[in-house]
């Protein structure tokens, strides 16, 4: 890892939901770090714990039933999990800002865009209303909203989806955060609009030197904007490495499965290799590796023990017995592949 201290370092994070029907281990042992100016991607299927990871960082887990049961979230060296609610409020929106998935529902429909921007600024900065309002205008211009002066007074419903997402980004940027968490910011948008927003992200990041966590389920987006990636499966990291490395030398069967199951425009058509089965129920995870039931390369041991995240190269960690180099007890571990490739 790098020498300079990370902007954010998440260590061994466990967030569980204690529901009536059982404990949902939504996030179950996640480690990663983000450096200033760096974009970390988190990919995974729906329900794999991406959003909960993000919300855990900000202390926004709905509680009850949610609870962070273990781990540290070090932001600029301070553990956010030890902060009081009041201290957290001062950090949210100021130091760490967040952009949510659905721009249609993430803005308050009954407040004008100006009000929603200004209130953030006033909460965190010692400015007059006028100044805050001016800042809001600048921000709207910055995120590329045409006719910003007049649009300020508008209500969210008067904007299109893409415009709203720009507004969300403007709000997130309003206090110059050092970390921006974007939770699937383009999933709800059309491709042409997605392209606009992704371009905006890249520009902003370059200009403001923020750390960014980009949550997505689209490997295309990852390839486009991320420096490093963490692939998540069932609340746990499956693979964690640099973006290019992931695409070139991805190791985890799940990562590979994902890459093969998406059709690509530029390649020749061939039959898709689907990952069989479906994501597990987080309340009753299978014994052993949670991906084992769907894994093409499943081995007997995978059904008994859960692998841990191990480095396979510098800055490349995989959580899979197939690549568990440090496992020296091969005798006790039956490495026969019992699953066979299907096509």
């Amino acid at each position: 890892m790098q020498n300079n201290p990370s902007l954010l370092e998440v260590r061994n994070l466990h967030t569980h939901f204690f529901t009536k029907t059982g404990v949902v281990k939504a996030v179950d042992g996640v480690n990663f770090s983000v450096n200033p100016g760096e974009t970390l991607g988190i990919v995974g299927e729906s329900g794999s714990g991406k959003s909960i990871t993000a919300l855990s960082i900000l202390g926004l887990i709905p509680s009850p039933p949610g609870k962070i049961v273990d781990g540290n979230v070090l932001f600029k060296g301070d553990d956010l999990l030890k902060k009081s609610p009041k201290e957290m409020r001062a950090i949210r929106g100021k130091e760490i800002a967040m952009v949510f998935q659905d721009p249609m529902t993430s803005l308050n429909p009954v407040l004008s865009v100006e009000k929603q921007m200004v209130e953030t600024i006033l909460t965190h900065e010692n400015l007059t209303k006028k100044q805050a309002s001016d800042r809001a205008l600048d921000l709207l211009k910055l995120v590329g909203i045409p006719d910003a002066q007049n649009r300020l007074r508008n209500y969210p419903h008067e904007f299109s989806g893409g415009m709203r997402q720009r507004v969300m980004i403007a709000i997130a940027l309003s206090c110059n955060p050092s970390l921006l968490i974007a939770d699937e910011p383009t999933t709800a948008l059309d491709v042409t609009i997605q392209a606009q927003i992704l371009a905006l992200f890249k520009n902003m990041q370059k200009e403001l030197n923020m750390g960014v966590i980009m949550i997505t389920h689209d490997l295309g987006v990852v390839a486009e904007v991320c420096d490093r990636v963490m692939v998540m499966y069932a609340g746990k990291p499956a693979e964690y490495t640099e973006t290019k490395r992931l695409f070139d030398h991805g190791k985890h069967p799940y990562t590979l499965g994902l890459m093969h199951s998406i059709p690509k425009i530029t390649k020749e058509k061939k039959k898709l290799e689907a990952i069989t089965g479906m994501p597990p129920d987080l309340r009753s995870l299978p014994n052993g590796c949670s991906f084992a039931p769907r894994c093409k390369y499943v081995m007997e041991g995978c059904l008994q023990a859960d692998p841990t995240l191990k480095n396979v190269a510098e800055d490349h960690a995989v959580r899979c017995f197939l690549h568990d180099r440090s496992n020296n007890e091969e005798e006790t571990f039956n490495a026969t592949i019992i699953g066979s490739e299907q096509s």
Partner: protein
Amino acid sequence: MQPLLEVNNLKKYFPTKGTSLFSRTKEMVKAVDGISFTVKAGETLGLVGESGCGKSTAGRSILKLTEPTEGQLIYKGEDITNFRGEQMRKLRQEMQLIFQDPYASLNPRKTIEQTITEPMKIFQMEKTARSEKLNRLLEVVGLSSYHKSRYPHEFSGGQRQRIGIARSLALDPELVICDEPVSALDVSIQAQVINLLEDLQEEFNLTYIFIAHDLSVIHHISDRVAVMYLGELVEIGEAKEVYASPQHPYTQALLSAVPEANPHLEKERIILKGDLPSPANPPEGCKFHTRCPFAEAICRSEKPTMKQVSLTGQMASCHFVKEVVRL
């Protein structure tokens, strides 16, 4: 060869909600504004475009689930535009629909068996035949017969989509319109369903109109693609050709905007400005001119027509494409 389906100048306008009781001239949402294409038996026609451009409306108008405002539908050489009631109900056996939302498309109060056999009941299939067919359909879509008595909420999204597919196959249709059947599914499940659809097409010799906004999926599954923008077709042709050399600026922009899962690829992106205009009052002239990087005066005033741009039948509707005249 005679096409299975021919769509001529299909239009579907919806009155806007707020029209007052008293004003005569109603404002219309031009959801589908004059599209024409043909579908050959056994092929897959991909219909792609941004959200709200009228893909679903086009699909539903073809099935006459909403009455088209204008245009002509010719199915197997027969003009079905004016089919009503019983006639149309008969025809329904041959044309089916697969829906986008696996949650909303199954009646939560009906068991899987009831859901899948309902069409057979409506067309008075015998009881034993029904249960035989049910079992076969379940098998075909990868469900087991013990699923029969279950309710939809006991299934995952992918499984529900299979149930929906089984229902649409119950009457042995020839034409199936798939309205974004995979866009609500997770990536890993998406591939399962796409594969299933492909297998079924082969097995039952189905013809698909496959609606999606995901260009990669369309690329994967379609033989031919039609690109829609604001209720109109802007480009249509063999999938390979359209993807390799898109002629219409909109198609070009669309294709370039797709993020590829390849970090080494340095794509030249065309980033369109602005948003999709409202179909309630679309721009004059070429509907795309407000966002088109190449727009000129003529685009603002004159509506372009479909022009053939390749010998294999690729067509685009732009003032600046070169027409290729077939000899």
